């Protein structure tokens, strides 16, 4: 059996490189009937903000060729509700539980992160500076080096556990943004968040989504995601977590070979709720078949 455990910074040990992406896996409990959560490297629970948010109006999704658009818009019951009502139910899961944190100002992010820092069994947070679906949801921060740095700087002061920053692909130069957040002390970056897209219902002559645009995910975007992981992994020294259209173990291995240390399974959870566990098992099997002793031996293998 190949070794598949990987570390993200000093504080986050994953039993395998497979995480579930925020917003695609609820709080994990929704999938507990169907899969053994203990077989995952970790789960990243849905985007949490300091205050509750109702999100955008319905319709929030559209199917596209080998992908989907969504404009959920960070619906969640806020950080306090998460700490008091959700955390007790998931803190003893046999896997790492990470929280995706969103905000609308650096102070906002920092305050929410500080609350998560109090939760012993949350070893890391993923900072969402790339949500394309709310006006104040961070994408404004995520598309400039200065904006991204300002959020990370504020959060870094308030949060001393593992800090992952999730990057937007809707930029000219994702590598420079990755370097900016690395410079402010991020422990890792994850990419890609969704690509901004639109689908028009020609019969009704209007966008399908309630707010017009949404975020594109699924296999359609995978080539863009692999390219960006490759670019960012060459640009920074901190670990890169890759995501974007990973449906199979082979897809996951593509990201590892592009330079990712771990991967997130997102939209695939909607197609096959067992996808994440199958991918974790499939990576193991592939490594064994290829005679690779340690998953680290294929990280960046395509460089």
């Amino acid at each position, binding site marked *: 059996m190949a070794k598949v455990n990987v570390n993200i910074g000093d504080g986050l040990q994953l039993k395998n490189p497979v995480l579930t992406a925020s*917003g695609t896996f609820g709080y994990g409990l929704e999938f507990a009937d*169907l899969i053994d959560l203990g077989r995952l490297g970790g789960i990243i629970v849905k985007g949490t903000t300091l205050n509750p948010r109702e999100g955008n109006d319905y319709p929030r999704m559209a199917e596209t060729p080998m992908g989907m658009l969504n404009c959920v818009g960070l619906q969640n019951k806020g950080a306090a509700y998460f700490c008091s009502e959700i955390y007790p139910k998931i803190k003893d899961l046999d896997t790492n539980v990470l929280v995706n944190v969103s905000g609308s100002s650096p102070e906002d992010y920092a305050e929410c992160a500080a609350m998560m820092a109090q939760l012993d069994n949350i070893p890391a947070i993923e900072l969402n500076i790339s949500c394309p679906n709310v006006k104040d949801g961070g994408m404004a921060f995520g598309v400039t080096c200065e904006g991204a740095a300002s959020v990370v700087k504020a959060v870094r002061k308030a949060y001393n556990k593992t800090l992952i920053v999730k990057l937007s692909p809707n930029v000219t130069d994702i590598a420079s943004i990755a370097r900016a957040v690395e410079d402010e002390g991020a422990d890792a970056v994850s990419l890609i968040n969704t690509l901004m897209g639109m689908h028009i219902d020609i019969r009704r002559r209007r966008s399908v989504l309630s707010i017009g645009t949404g975020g594109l995910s699924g296999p359609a975007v995978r080539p863009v995601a692999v390219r960006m992981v490759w670019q960012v992994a060459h640009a920074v020294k901190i670990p890169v977590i890759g995501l974007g259209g990973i449906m199979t173990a082979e897809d996951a291995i593509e990201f590892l070979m592009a330079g990712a240390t771990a991967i997130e399974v997102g939209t695939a959870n909607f197609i096959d709720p067992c996808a994440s566990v199958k991918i974790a098992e499939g990576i193991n099997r592939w490594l064994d078949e290829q005679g690779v002793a340690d998953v680290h031996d294929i990280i960046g293998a395509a460089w």
Partner: protein
Amino acid sequence: MSKHVKDLVVTAVEKLRDDYAVIHLHDPAATLPEILPGQFVEVRVDHSPNTFLRRPISINEVDINKNEFSLLVHAVGEGTKAMLALKPGDKLNCLYPLGHGFTIPEGSGRQLLLCGGGVGTAPLLYYGRRLKEAGHEPTFLLGGRSARDLLQLDQFEQYGRVCCTTEDGTYGEHGRVTDHSVLKSQTFDAVATCGPMPMMQAVARWASSLNLPCEASLENLMACGLGACLCCVVKTIDNHNICVCQDGPVFNTQQLQWQK
């Protein structure tokens, strides 16, 4: 009521019309879990290049003896068209049973009006049978544009009185379900509805005017079916977004904003 995801075996595809079929699905390996009327299945459609997401389909009937359930499918898009092309012996990957079902009242002898239109009549068949088995008396009020839109009438008749309306007058009373004389001639204890949104809203308004409890089964666009993606939301009267897949698909219509 735990959820399952597995390849079920197609045992029959009964064509009701060119574009409607009842697909029977059997689990050869394990006893099906308890399935409540109103619950649904998320179906994965392979071999359809433009069908990326699963398709939510409500459960039309359950046959415990055969260890199978059936889906009434209307072929409107590529995914549902591919489903109609299934043959006995084919496999279909299903995630089930999902959501909350219709209420089966305590006691017995309750008069329930079940109003359906289009493919929305599907869950009312199983619901009607379960009501009858529980000792209640369902009345089915089924509407369509034309006689050919009224499906499975012989099966509905096994479980209760069947009233029909057609917009062109080719079958039953002329008009829409809320125009039917049974609404005046008979009294009911509760109402359930599933079908096009304008129909459900009209039914809910009528029920509300008589202070009758009314449940509606919604069919929002959805991705996961598990309450994870938060795409299928509907607004409650206190302005919260809740998931059709997990908090529904059956709601007391008083809970929802759309009734107004």
